């Protein structure tokens, strides 16, 4: 699916890098523990998280992820959005909870395993 599809499925707002909504997603992971995220290499994926700090963006940069979704209506600070913008990462917020958001994406075909 494309980031645009994820945005619609989660009824999410775009905070930056709207021009990259056409990018493809091949995997996703839902996690608040960045050290766990770093243990899996899946590029071109989305990270869904309830954790809000700049390390979320740096983790996404290291992993070559293309999209971050903050769940439960969490709003990242401006410096967090700015950091994502510098790195071309789409930032979204949704009012859905992590479990629900992941479930919706999974049932719509966004796999756990990279399918490239």
């Amino acid at each position, binding site marked *: 699916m494309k980031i645009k599809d994820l945005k619609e499925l989660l009824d999410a707002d775009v905070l930056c890098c709207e021009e990259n909504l056409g990018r493809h997603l091949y995997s996703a992971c839902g996690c608040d523990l960045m050290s766990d995220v770093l243990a899996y290499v899946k590029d071109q994926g989305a990270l869904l998280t309830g954790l809000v700090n700049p*390390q979320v963006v740096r983790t996404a*940069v*290291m*992993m070559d992820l293309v999209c971050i979704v903050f769940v439960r209506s969490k709003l990242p600070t401006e410096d967090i959005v700015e950091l994502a913008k510098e790195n071309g990462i789409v930032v979204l917020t949704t009012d859905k909870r992590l479990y629900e958001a992941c479930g919706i994406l999974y049932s719509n075909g966004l796999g756990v395993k990279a399918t490239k």
Partner: protein
Amino acid sequence: MSEPLVFHYDIDGEDFISAGQASIQIKKNLRRIGLSPEVIRRVSIAMYEGEINMVIHAKGGTADVMLYEDRIEIILADKGPGISNIEEAMQEGFSTASDTIRSLGFGAGMGLPNMKRYSDKMTIDTTVGVGTTVTMVINIT
């Protein structure tokens, strides 16, 4: 053999929020140089984990990244508390991180095992009360 290209960074140990900036810089530099995405990802993840470790466990230190023709060497040196039992520290899930660090998304005890997995060679030189130097080598194939 030509001289390696060297990148040096001082890692501020007081500031968790800015931790990881050196790794972001390295990633940008390696992209500019045109290394393969796979090598760049391995270097940046390994270095990021090490950089975070220096900030959360050792109050900062220095990072030197050396680019040779056939490999990249990352040397992370700190004057922190040292690691008393390396074998234990290398186990997945072993962590002495505080609850505060955990609430910030780290402290799962995955960093050192990750660093080992993403590098071709890793050595830890540590003395309790003196400091720790972690050296990682990633081959460019």
